[in-house]
């Protein structure tokens, strides 16, 4: 091998240093090209993607820089260590000042006055109490399609499912709330609803009539969504003016 080392010696071009044992044996790139079906498609797509990457790098908004940003060591690392230890210290401080209490041992024959999960599950617990919204269907002779508690579990699934598909409903390049007042309003109503439904879940503790609380649970989010929408729509004009002014100052119209 090393006897006939010349400048034009080539491996199969992929740079692995792997050489075919004879001329009959195909190189890796040839094998990839000869494949059929899905693997052929994969090969072709990867070739395309590689070319796309190459093009992207050559485009002007890929800026070649010697230093990407702050050097990782020590600047970035010291900042991270400082933030992390501050945060851990905060946890330790809160833990030292507000220790948890321990209720009585489990007793299945004594129902406590207050049955509650931890605070972060109040919203889910509240959704279990949506029985009054479970429709009586006249087609079923006034009976309900599903039991109230099934309805509550379904409500959980619906809420989580809706949050999950948000990226597939709200597309486009708008990022800030002012640029998309509708979705900001949806988000705001969601936040408020998670609070009101949490209040509903502890309705036996809330100093407010249960029916009123139930109505407010749905009214307050709608009202706050409306207010958010109105405020953002109003802000939007001034905001767009500023943005356009800055944009056209940087890139004057031809």
């Amino acid at each position: 091998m090393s006897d006939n080392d010349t400048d034009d010696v080539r491996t199969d071009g992929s740079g692995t240093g792997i050489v075919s044992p004879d001329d009959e044996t195909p190189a890796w790139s040839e094998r990839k090209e000869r494949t059929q079906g899905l693997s052929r498609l994969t090969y072709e797509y990867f070739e395309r993607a590689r070319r796309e990457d190459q093009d992207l790098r050559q485009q002007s908004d890929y800026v070649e820089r010697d230093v990407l940003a702050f050097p990782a060591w020590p600047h970035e690392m010291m900042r991270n260590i400082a933030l992390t230890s501050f945060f851990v210290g905060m946890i330790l401080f809160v833990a030292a000042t507000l220790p948890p209490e321990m209720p009585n041992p489990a007793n299945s024959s004594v129902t406590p006055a207050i049955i509650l999960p931890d605070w972060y599950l109040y919203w889910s617990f509240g959704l279990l109490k949506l029985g009054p919204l479970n429709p009586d269907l006249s087609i079923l002779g006034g009976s309900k399609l599903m039991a109230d508690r099934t309805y509550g579990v379904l409500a959980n699934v619906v809420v989580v499912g809706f949050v999950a598909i948000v990226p597939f409903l709200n597309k486009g390049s708008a990022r800030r709330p002012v640029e998309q007042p509708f979705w900001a309003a949806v988000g705001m109503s969601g936040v408020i609803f998670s609070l009101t439904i949490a209040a509903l879940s502890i309705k036996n503790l809330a100093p407010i009539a249960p029916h009123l609380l139930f109505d407010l649970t749905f009214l307050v989010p709608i009202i706050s969504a409306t207010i958010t929408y109105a405020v953002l729509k109003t802000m939007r004009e001034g905001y767009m003016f500023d943005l356009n002014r800055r944009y056209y100052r940087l890139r004057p119209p031809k």
Partner: protein
Amino acid sequence: MSLERKDEHDHKGWMESRELTPVESVYLTVLIWLDRRLRVVDYLEILEDLYYKVNMQMPKSHTEQYNLDNKFWYWYPLYALGSFSTVAYIVAAISGALLGFYYAPAAAAADGSPTVAYDSVMLIMGQLNLGYFLRSVHRWAAQIMVAAVFLHMLRVYFTGAYKEPRELNWLIGIVLISLTLVFGYTGYLLPWSQLSFWAGQIGVEMSLSIPLIGEWVAQLMFGGFTLSQATLQRMYILHVFFLPFITTAIIAVHIGIVWMQGIAEPH
């Protein structure tokens, strides 16, 4: 071809022919030793590739490009919520592992008398040096993690950071937030106090009310239709075995994707 071994590549001679510092020669000796056995050189290219991918030059961010940094600095604390929840997760993992040395998941009954689980928590809180503090740290780290995760989700929502190409990471985030809540729920049941018992009761009834598969889910998760020793045992194994592995793996994927795609700055 003869079976006699021919050492064409006299690495030792090559090393001696060069003037190496002790550090260099030790390094080369180790490298050659490893390479003779594992053929590291075949993977060097992959490592190199990985190195350059990790240190990839990113395009200028929008804020950099239009010099908007002075307009946005006050947003930046909101961008730390993800790492805060990770830090809280790590604190909870460490303190939880320490608590696990003393906790025993055994519930003899639910008749108002202290069970083994309850007693071991009482022992941690009453007898163990710094035990009360340890439990407090674990609990608060969990609470703060949940809060940080919720706020992190709100930040991502209101800055539109879930949009293309980050939809997949949003979905992974939904899975992670659910796992966090399940983590909290299973942990809430472990002391086997009144609150734990009745929260468990709600859980059993919730799973029983799922159509078609309800009873199966109740059996799988709670070990029966009434709360018993099996329930506590399952909650314990979920809390200290399944969830930690699953959640840690998914967190790694989540952060890895953020690393690959970069932070979505507001623009």
